[in-house]
């Protein structure tokens, strides 16, 4: 086998590998990107011939979006797109070499930003932190690129030593990125609730935004700033209503609209720059406002979901507890019935000299059989409803309690009750999280109710609830919920854990009964530890999770 054959085989293999590396889908995206980039660049060139001073470098925003979304494998496409666009609409005086070096500057700075951002995934524009990270990276990348480009222009181009040139170029690049990149990255991931109300609202907002732009258009040459702040109104409206997605879309529409309005290069450059700078400030404000709204919505939704889940479980275990209570109430008479009938049968058999009448005995047998059938029906019913025993897993007790307290916090604030938590750090319990939260909520709610009743009667203000927990011997964790209310009436104490016994006008009397059921299902105990005026405490135990083995692992 000759050496040349081997070499050509290796060459063919490498080619095949390269071809396989470029997937058809990625290739199509790259081509579409190049075309779109050229179009955007061309539009920019129509507004201002010198690349760094265009009103918002939208092509650059597109490039950064593609690099963040698809990774650095799209870097060649960006390079090709930029060089091709430069050839289509060349920057005067820079020459082919200068423009190519400028394209390299774009690649290095934007790829750097994209690489840094991608280490933690696509930035989350719906959180302040994610947005700040993105804008920080974008600002630095734009600044480096602007400095590089202005240095090039100074060397080869028509520019004098203009100190403000870097600032102007940076504004243009940063604005393009701030407007286009979030819009492209956020919109495709957005699954909007297509309710007619939302669609109608979006349409009205688009109309108002367009109207505001039309109003300021005739003033673009004489004084474009006088009514500039008109744009804030629809923008804020959109951001508040639709969050980060709305802000990104609003910014993009505004930029697109203004580009359309400015589509003639007959304006002074300085005016354009001033205008752009205001635009950038507005754009960033809207992004932050939008992400704050989104973040808040997200938190609210999570809270709502948890509340719903808790309500669902609460309903289920309420049903279970009712079934259990009913079962107990019915099983008692059934037990007595069976025992009485069997006793009668035995007495008949013992005292009667003659054998007892077969029919009588049979009737009694049937009575017992029916009573037992009733018992088994009750048993089936109870098994059917279940006890709501969720899966148990090791949990951090402090976190479980904190989540439960989130749900009763508003009620505590309303009642003016201070809640103090003294839970030892790192207490791990093996529990059904939702069940334990329900116990916590029940106990805190009871404490709250008694404090509230006392406050309403004017006896005292400034109630206090203290939640504490510590590990006890025998692998248990003991939790205490204490309040400084009036304590429980002796009568209430006697029937404390009985279902359907409540001393509250609106209570069903299942809270403590359900809670005890949950705690006992965990193999723990729930009891009234203390009750006197100024101090009422319930305690319960939970199984500790074996955290030691976890730490060793």
């Amino acid at each position, binding site marked *: 086998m000759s050496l040349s054959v081997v070499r050509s085989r290796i060459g063919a293999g490498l080619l095949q590998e390269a071809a396989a590396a470029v997937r058809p889908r990625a290739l199509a995206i790259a081509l579409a990107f190049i075309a779109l980039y050229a179009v955007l660049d061309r539009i920019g060139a129509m507004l201002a011939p010198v690349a760094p001073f265009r009103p918002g470098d939208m092509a650059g925003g597109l490039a950064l979006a593609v690099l963040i979304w698809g990774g650095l494998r799209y870097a060649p496409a960006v390079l090709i797109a930029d060089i091709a666009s430069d050839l289509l609409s060349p920057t005067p005086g820079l020459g082919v070499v200068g423009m190519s070096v400028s394209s390299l500057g774009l690649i290095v700075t934007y790829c750097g930003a994209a690489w840094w951002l991608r280490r933690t995934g696509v930035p989350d524009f719906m959180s302040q932190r994610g947005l700040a990270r993105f804008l920080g990276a974008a600002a630095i990348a734009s600044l480096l690129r602007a400095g590089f480009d202005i240095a090039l222009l100074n060397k080869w181009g028509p520019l004098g030593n203009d100190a403000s040139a870097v600032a102007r170029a940076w504004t243009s690049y940063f604005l393009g990125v701030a407007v286009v990149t979030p819009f492209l990255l956020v919109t495709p991931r957005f699954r909007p609730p297509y309710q007619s109300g939302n669609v109608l609202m979006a349409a009205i907002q688009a109309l108002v935004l367009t109207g505001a732009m039309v109003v300021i258009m005739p003033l673009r040459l004489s004084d474009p700033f006088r009514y500039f702040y008109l744009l804030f109104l629809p923008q804020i409206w959109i951001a508040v209503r639709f969050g980060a997605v709305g802000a990104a879309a609003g910014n993009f529409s505004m930029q697109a609209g203004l580009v359309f309005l400015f589509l003639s290069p007959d304006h002074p450059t300085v005016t354009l720059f001033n205008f752009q700078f205001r635009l950038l400030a507005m754009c960033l404000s809207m992004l932050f406002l939008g992400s704050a709204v989104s973040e808040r919505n997200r938190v609210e939704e999570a809270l709502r979901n948890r509340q719903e889940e808790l309500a669902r479980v609460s309903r289920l275990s309420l049903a279970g507890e009712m079934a259990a209570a009913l079962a107990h109430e019915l099983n*008692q008479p059934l037990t*007595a019935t069976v025992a009485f009938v069997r006793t009668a049968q035995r007495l008949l058999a013992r005292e009667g000299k003659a054998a007892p009448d077969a029919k009588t005995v049979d009737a009694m047998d049937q009575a017992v059989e029916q009573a*037992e059938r009733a018992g088994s029906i009750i048993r089936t019913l109870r098994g059917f409803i279940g006890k709501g025993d969720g899966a148990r897993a090791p949990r951090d007790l402090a976190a479980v309690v904190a989540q439960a307290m989130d749900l009763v916090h508003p009620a505590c604030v309303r009642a003016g009750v201070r809640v103090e938590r003294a839970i030892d750090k790192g207490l791990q319990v093996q529990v059904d999280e939702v069940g334990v939260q329900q116990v916590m909520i029940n106990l805190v709610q009871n404490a709250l109710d008694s404090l509230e009743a006392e406050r309403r009667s004017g006896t005292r203000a400034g109630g206090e609830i203290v939640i504490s927990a510590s590990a006890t011997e025998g692998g248990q964790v003991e939790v205490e919920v204490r309040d400084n209310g009036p304590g429980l009436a002796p009568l209430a104490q006697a029937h404390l854990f*009985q279902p359907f016994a409540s001393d509250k006008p609106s209570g069903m009397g299942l809270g403590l009964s359900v809670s005890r059921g949950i705690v006992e299902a965990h193999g723990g105990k729930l009891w009234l530890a203390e009750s006197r005026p100024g101090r009422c405490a319930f305690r319960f135990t939970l199984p500790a999770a074996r955290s030691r083995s976890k730490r060793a692992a």
Partner: protein
Amino acid sequence: MSVHPLIHVVDDEAPVRTALVMLAESAGHHAQAHASAEDFLKNAGQGASGCVVADVRMPGMSGLELQTEMKRRGMELPMIVITGHGDVAMAVQALKAGALGFLEKPFDDDVFLASVSEALEAFDRHDRERRAMADVEARVDALTQREREIMTLIAQGLSNREAARDLSISVRTVENHRARVMEKMQAKNLSDLVRMVLRLEDASAH
């Protein structure tokens, strides 16, 4: 001494405890009803005999708590726990704590009576053992110090000669003591004696 073993029925509901007492009596047992665990502890006292049938969930002291309280007071009555809740967790807990049985309400008479009989037998067996033990202990008390030493050595399997060497006394003396030990302990033979000593050691180990 001729007190009948009693079945103590502890349930907060009157019809249930009445019915169970009547059922037990119809089968020839002696039974007594108690309205609560506290009542039972007050009425029955330390020397109670028989067994306890108690509901798990009662206002006041629960069946499980009664179980621990009885253990604390040294009342060695076998316990059968009954419940209308069908709580598996509680059943396991009760059985772990030493309950003899667990019945789910409603139950038929044969189940109930079989459990009760078993409990009474268990009590009887324990009672007899306790009495035999008390007997043996009384006999040991009647031994002198030296006789006790010799009994211990012999039970360990030492011959008369070895025991004599151990205690530095004559073989003759050992033989005399040994005869008196057998007599006082009412042991038919050596293995009988060894069994008694082992049982005593067992009891003191517990």
